[in-house]
């Protein structure tokens, strides 16, 4: 089977597309009046928060909307042909052959019971009718193209035998098997670590160039879109609100939502005290509860009653002077887009107080049977935490940064008492708590050290009202003498996290993600916690909500003088809110210092790579391009010497193979800045900043 005949026009034209899902209750419009055009070789980004309909557009292009979904109006043309008019047979020819898709969760999108080779070979065998041998040769070639080591072994493995990054490369390889003309990437890197994400994005860009593939890149991450795409389409609540080239949209945004989005993400210039993030007020409207007129109206700063809320469809209008730049705002000509941000009140930076928490040479080793399922075999030691030493002061934010497997969650578990330490000390107000499991801790200690979890969706009991859950926490922490007293305290806690008191009687399912996370925070602070471990508290939330939740945490911290241990992999947010940063890699603290010290040279080579990997949504920022090769080594089998030596680009600067032989010592660089590296002072001094802001 061959490809469609060559076609000169745009690869993909979506014109006034509306897609609805039909439930027994009602029709739910998921996408309305959506248009986008993808030219040959062009990469178009589709940006928006969860539920805005961006994935629905992708599935609409694939004509795979499921039983309930239907294209209500508009058309999707691929190389000039209307996809809706194609027969099932023709669609099958196009899927995987002309249009290929890369998915969010690589593990779930690969067949667990089928070898990788077979899954890859299937594509050319279906579409081009080639034999086993040729298909295998092609698979081998593509797997080499996606820079996977040892391609033959890869083809002979099952998906679960590969790491997340490798799986995603396989999914990419699968999409590229038949050299499609359009590639749809649905949040392709959301499930991956930052450094792995950077490598995958790099790969996608290169391959796009090599094969001349057009791309539709769906993401919620503006920085990522800036790095990969030529053009951009911002979606809000089922509609495209702004469309144009990357530079037009990033630098001359013409829609209030786009502007609000940019103001709510932590860019390098933001600072929690001097220039705080501006959260978008209100909540994302549910598809069946959209307001009349402009969907963004109720949350918009420029809202004009009687004009923006008239029940009519607001059309996309071109922005004069720019190339194909359009916006869905009635007032865009009137708004002064260059008006400086009216700053929210500047806040006093609170000075860190006395030391409340001290870690000294903390070690946590796990013994793991080599063969978990059937027991036996020799035991292996996983060194999850290796000689952790630091202090945290009152009302200080200490960020712990690192990728999956670096031991940051293990550390949190030991601190919370869910695990006990193998060696070393944890001192809380001078008392040792490292060997006291949570069952043996007294109420004070438990209520002093609390945690805010990553996923607010799983950490609330679905069958208990919000108020009940907070009161339960109060009971456990022995706060209040009577039910009425606790009820009062619970309502105060709701005030503290800025939730309406009426929410006390709601069930968790009636709350949005951000609201749930607020309940989680209220619960953590119920016993007047003094140390709060926030484990990626906003990474599961939408961009516009993240800012609000982060601000809330900061505000409570200022009020309560809490010590916040902020675990995150997102360096932008870490730079924004933390006072000190601790970078971890494979259980080791590789760098520790003030935010300023860590984010400027000299860096630890890993910090440097991490900084370079984080996508920044600012066109004026220039980054040094550092891509880490390979995956993070397994903690079961760490490399000898320095843990980072397998991926370090500075390794050759250290004479005598020192990096491979010895774990570097903890070195003081002055003013509490410490680093675990063999590089000498001269080399460290040569390091240049990774992130440079071009002169305005």
């Amino acid at each position, binding site marked *: 089977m061959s490809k469609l005949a060559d076609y000169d026009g745009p690869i993909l034209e979506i014109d006034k597309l509306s897609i609805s899902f039909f439930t027994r209750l009602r029709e739910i419009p998921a996408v309305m009046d959506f248009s986008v055009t993808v030219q040959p070789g062009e990469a178009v980004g589709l940006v928006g928060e969860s539920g805005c309909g961006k994935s629905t557009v992708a599935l609409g292009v694939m004509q*795979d909307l499921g039983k309930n979904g239907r294209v209500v109006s508009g058309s999707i043309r691929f190389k000039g042909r209307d996809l809706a008019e194609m027969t099932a047979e023709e669609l099958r020819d196009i899927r995987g052959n002309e249009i290929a898709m890369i998915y969010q969760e690589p593990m779930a999108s690969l067949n*667990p019971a089928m070898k990788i080779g077979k899954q890859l070979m299937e594509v050319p065998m*279906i579409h081009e009718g080639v034999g086993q041998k040729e298909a295998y040769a092609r698979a081998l070639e593509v797997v080499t193209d996606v820079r996977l080591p040892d391609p033959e072994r890869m083809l002979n493995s099952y998906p679960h035998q590969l790491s997340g990054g490798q799986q995603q490369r396989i*999914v990419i390889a699968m999409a590229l098997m038949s050299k499609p003309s359009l590639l749809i990437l649905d949040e392709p890197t959301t499930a991956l670590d930052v450094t792995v994400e950077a490598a995958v994005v790099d790969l996608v860009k290169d391959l796009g160039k090599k094969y001349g593939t057009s791309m539709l890149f769906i993401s919620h991450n503006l920085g990522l879109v800036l790095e990969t795409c030529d053009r951009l389409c911002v979606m809000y609540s089922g509609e495209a609100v702004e469309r144009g080239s990357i530079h037009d949209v990033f630098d001359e945004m013409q829609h209030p939502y786009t502007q609000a989005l940019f103001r709510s993400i932590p860019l390098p210039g933001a600072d929690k005290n001097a220039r705080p993030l501006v959260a978008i007020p209100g909540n994302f409207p549910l598809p069946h509860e959209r307001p009349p007129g402009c969907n963004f109206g109720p949350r918009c700063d420029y809202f004009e009653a009687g004009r923006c809320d008239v029940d009519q469809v607001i059309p996309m209008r071109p922005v004069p002077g720019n190339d194909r730049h359009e916006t869905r705002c009635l007032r865009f000509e009137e708004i002064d887009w260059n008006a400086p941000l009216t700053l929210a009140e500047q806040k006093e930076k609170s000075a860190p107080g006395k030391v409340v928490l001290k870690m000294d040479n903390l070690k946590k080793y796990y013994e793991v049977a080599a063969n978990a399922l059937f027991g036996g075999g020799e035991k292996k030691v996983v060194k999850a935490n290796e000689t952790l030493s630091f202090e945290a002061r009152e009302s200080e934010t200490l960020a712990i940064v690192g990728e999956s497997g670096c031991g940051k969650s293990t550390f949190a578990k030991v601190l919370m008492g869910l695990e006990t330490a193998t060696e070393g000390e944890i001192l809380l107000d001078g008392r040792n708590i490292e060997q006291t499991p949570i069952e043996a801790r007294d109420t004070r200690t438990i209520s002093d050290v609390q945690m805010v979890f990553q996923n607010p969706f799983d950490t609330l009991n679905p069958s208990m009202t919000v108020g009940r859950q907070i009161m339960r926490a109060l009971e456990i922490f022995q706060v209040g003498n009577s039910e009425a007293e606790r009820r009062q305290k619970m309502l105060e806690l709701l005030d503290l996290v800025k939730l309406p008191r009426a929410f006390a009687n709601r069930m968790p399912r009636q709350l949005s993600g951000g609201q749930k996370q607020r309940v989680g925070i209220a619960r953590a602070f119920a016993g007047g916690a003094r140390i709060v471990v926030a484990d990626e508290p906003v990474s599961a939330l939408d961009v516009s909500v993240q800012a609000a939740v982060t601000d809330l945490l900061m505000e409570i911290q200022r009020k309560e003088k809490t010590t916040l241990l902020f675990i995150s992999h997102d360096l932008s947010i870490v730079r924004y809110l933390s006072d000190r940063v601790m970078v971890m890699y494979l259980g080791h603290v590789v760098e520790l210092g003030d935010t300023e010290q860590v984010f400027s040279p000299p860096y630890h080579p890993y910090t440097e790579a991490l900084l370079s990997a984080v996508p920044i949504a600012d066109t004026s920022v220039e980054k040094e391009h550092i891509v880490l090769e390979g995956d993070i080594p397994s903690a079961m089998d760490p490399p000898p010497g320095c843990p980072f030596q397998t991926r370090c680009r500075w390794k050759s600067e250290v004479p005598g193979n020192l990096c491979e032989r010895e774990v570097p010592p903890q070195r003081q660089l002055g003013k509490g800045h410490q680093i675990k590296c063999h590089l000498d002072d001269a080399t460290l001094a040569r390091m240049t900043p990774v992130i440079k802001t071009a002169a305005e």
Partner: protein
Amino acid sequence: MGVFILRRVGVMLLTALCLTFVVFFMTNLYPNLEKLAKTQGNFRMSDEAVATWLERGGYLQSTPKKYLEWIGLAPSYRHVAEDGTVTGRCIQPGMTAEEAPRYCGILQGYWGYSTVFRDEVGNIIATRLGLTGYLMFWVMLIMVPSALILGVLAGMREGSAMDRSLSTVAITTTATPEYVSGVLFIAIFSSSAVGLKWFKGTATSAMENPNFENFTLPVLTIVLYGMGYIARMTRASMTEVMTAQYIRTARLKGVSFHNIVLKHALRNALIAPFTVIMLQFPWLLNGVVIVETLFNYKGFGWTLVQAAGNNDIELLLGVSVVSVLVVLITQLISDIGYVYLNPRIRIS
């Protein structure tokens, strides 16, 4: 893999020992022994006579001792009568005490003597197990493929007309007990009430010469009952697999529906029903009691009923040993097969 199987076999033997000991203990309770003495000797025996009888047979030793003797790990009990004649379990008629072996238990291949059938337990079990095995073979041969086909067809498009109708069939068959469906079949296909007379209503002749006519109805009765259950399991597993993301990947790769089901979904969907299918073996072995009785097919289940009904201790023990072994062996096979179906579980 080898180590894994060895380990499992070890655990299996231990389980077998425990389970047989439980059965041994229950069957050797004093009331049972008393009944045995009376059926073997004389119903009007006095209590003293019963005690003497039991004493002579070695039944009054401690249970562990008796158990070890039965297993063949302890020398078996010998009774020296007043006149000097030696009797014992191991001394078969026509043997002298000197010729007879000291140990005679399961390990030596001596399973005891059935008081009902007046034959060696080993012989009885071998014949009866053979007969049931033959029945089981045909049942499995028909039941498993048809159940899987039914389940996969129903599960591949959840909620479709095909799913609804096949599910109805599966639920109906599994909700109809064998004594209902068996009686219905006999009435419809072999009695003069309907007059079809296609098959025979009894499978007695099938014990020597099984053929289509006399063997169809018992097989069909069991198949229908078991099939619905496996089909439901398969359907549930299949519908779950069909909504998995990798099925969407395959679909958007351009794989045809036919190949999605056969190449991508099937292997994943068979993982769950496989255990259920393996569980059907022990169920069939003892669960065929009704069908064997109904069709007068004197197999293993029928033997079990006879042994239990007549307080035939040795036979009962023999039957339970076989049952326990079948359960354990099929579970071992199920575990090994599971590893092959599901690559995520690998033993190394």
